């Protein structure tokens, strides 16, 4: 299990997007967005960048890795 905190849900809800809509925007399944929000999946760099652009938030604000 990846060891990081994911704030994707917060930024997704700020943009008033459903998991399905966000999944379509970045080209993944809804289940992948669900796992990401639960920090159960470590996305690729490309997916992380796409998510950052989709929710208009910096990557380092969405995915928090402990120092």
């Amino acid at each position, binding site marked *: 299990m990846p060891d990081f905190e994911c704030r994707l849900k917060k930024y997704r809800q700020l943009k008033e997007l459903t998991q399905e809509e966000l999944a379509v925007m970045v*080209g*993944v*399944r809804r*289940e*992948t967005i669900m*796992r990401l929000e639960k920090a*159960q*999946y470590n*996305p*690729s760099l490309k*997916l992380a960048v796409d998510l950052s652009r989709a929710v208009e938030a910096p990557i380092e604000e969405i995915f928090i890795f402990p120092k």
Partner: protein
Amino acid sequence: MNKKAKIVGMGIICLLMVIGASLYAVKFNDSRLVVPMEQPYEFTVKDLPMHIAVACMVLYVFYLCWLGCQKAKKDAAAHVTRRISPKLGIMGLLGFLGLLGFYTYNAEGRVAPFLFFMFFGFFGFFYEGKMSNTFMDERYMENKRRAQRKAHRIAQGIVYVTLFLVAMAEGRILKATDTKLIILVIAVACSIAVDIFLGEYLLYQYDHEE
């Protein structure tokens, strides 16, 4: 009439043509091309219905294969897994045909039927069917690679352990070369089945694990 109904209809027509041509051959043509013939084949006009019916059936089968290829190309382009029914998993029961090998070995010394044990891998269709029509995003591909790596390692492990045990085996029965061959053939067939089944089972588990 939709496309599926047309395809099924064509199949039924081809089947009826073959049945009709067979009945014609039995009734009016001395059962030529229906029962095995002893003389070399010589064409007669009365053989035409059977030739036409079989040709139509062969063309229909080629058409089905072509449709399948087109569908697979379309799915691959859309990055979607193929659509199959989980019920196909019942084909895994064909693996029990491997037990025929004990009969054929005793009767004729043949070990080839033991290879049917690899059909146990078809139980994997059950899990592949459950993952049918799934979009193959990066998480799916990662889970697939992880599942296949683990399945390959376990299948290889079965072969290595069997090789080791067979090579070291002692005793009147196990020392015989034939017995060792049979054990190795069964082990390789079962490892192939395990590889195929586990690949699909683990992919399903990884995709649905909490």
